[in-house]
């Protein structure tokens, strides 16, 4: 079987997606369970010192620090589409390139606990 990987955006117009990556798992309070859509995770701040640009991500009472990284090998976002009935190809699925990721903000340092007590909607747990 042959599945074509379609791309309607072409070389110039591929939409840019991004990644926020951290070590560990973000958990919500048990009372929220799975109703997390729309819920705030945290606050991302940017600061610069000497020549470096730093990022701080505050989740609950944890503060993470990280940097923006350019991916040596970009990631493409592919979407699997189920074929409609009566389509030309007899495959059940096709693939489409819908975005490209060239940069991510990566938090790989241990989180720092903030002493003050912010509004806790989410808490961060690290492994």
């Amino acid at each position, binding site marked *: 079987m*042959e599945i074509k990987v379609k*791309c309607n955006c072409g070389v110039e117009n591929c*939409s840019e997606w991004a990644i926020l990556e*951290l*070590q560990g798992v973000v958990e919500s309070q048990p009372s929220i369970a799975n109703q997390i859509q729309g819920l705030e995770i*945290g606050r991302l701040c*940017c600061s610069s010192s000497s020549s470096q640009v730093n990022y701080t991500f505050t989740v609950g009472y944890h503060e993470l620090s990280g940097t923006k990284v350019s991916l040596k090998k970009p990631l493409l976002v592919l*979407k699997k589409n189920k074929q409609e009935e009566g389509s030309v190809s007899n495959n059940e699925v096709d693939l489409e390139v819908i975005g490209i990721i060239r940069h991510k903000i990566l938090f790989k340092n241990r989180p720092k606990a903030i002493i003050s007590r912010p509004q806790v909607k989410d808490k961060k747990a690290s492994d």
Partner: protein
Amino acid sequence: MATNKGDINDGGAESFLTLGPDNSVTVRYHPDFGPHSDLILLEVPDDSVLNDLLRGRVTIRGQFDEDAVLCTPSSTYAMKFVGTSNSVFLIPPRKPNLSDPQPNPLVSVLKLAPGNVELVLTAPRLDKLRFLLMQRLYKIDEEDEEDCSSEGLYTWHDLICSIQASDEELREGLKFLSAVEINGFWRIVHPKSVNMILTMVLTNSVLHDWSLDALVEEEVLSVLESDGFNTTIVKHCLETFGTKNENDNSKLWGLDKKRIAVHFAKQVLGSNGGKMRLEIFIEKWMRNVQKGTPFDLNMLEGEVLYETIGAETWIKAFSVADLPLTPDARFSVLFKERAKWAWKDLEPYVRDLRVPGISSEGLLIKYTRRVQPNADAEPIFSAR
């Protein structure tokens, strides 16, 4: 993706990536946050593959029981999913909202990605190609036979759907097998038919005083056509045994004496496994080949093996072109044929092996055991 719930219009990936010093933004779960298992992250190894992907020149090929491969026009990649223990939050681009052109300083994450697919350059999987095309060898006069079904026959499109190789590698594979496209199907010509046509070309060359270095294509095709031979097959014979020399307007073919000598050597010996005493072979070979054709046993490298039985030397047909293409299967067959190989005998049967990322020495180290009693002795290779 479904439309945003409510009046949310966030800045998306752009706001996220262009966040400047002394600025901040809230990161939240997208209203449509969920597993979105239909979204896959694919790591692209280099710009060439990226270009092919963005220009829609890439396909995924394979049967349901095979691991899928990704093919660009010229290369084949194995697809490997690599998981991560990090939390990788995927942020889509901002969806332009015409009613509110100013985005809120807000970033939404749509999905937590469990990992991404990596591409590993791999050798095309072409052993299956020979297997498929051997199902129905093309014989001259085939059209006269009763069986006109297309079962066991493959078009280019059929091959693309069955063989895990890029278009370019598939074409090379077909060329390597001396396959020819007849009536839309790719066929390997039966050895007896190949021999018949070559012999006809050579006989007619003598009859019509044609020069084997400069056969006129039209002349050869028309003479053989009047003898009842399909022009596609005759042309294929010229391609198999000769080289085209486009001179002025008439197409000229020069037949390669070495390819012809090898062909007749194989005719004398029969198919793989056929063997005879060396003197008898040489005598028969000399009789079959045109006068003036050099026939040097070195031409048969990679086509024959020699055995000493008692005081006699025997020669046996063993063609590298009939052996598997993947290293593990190739070495397995070689060591089944002979437990120990001297390097000079082994080399013609391994020199064509290609695996991306491994050198020929690497292949030997991986699949063989090398023994060399002392510095002067020749190394001997056996199975690992």
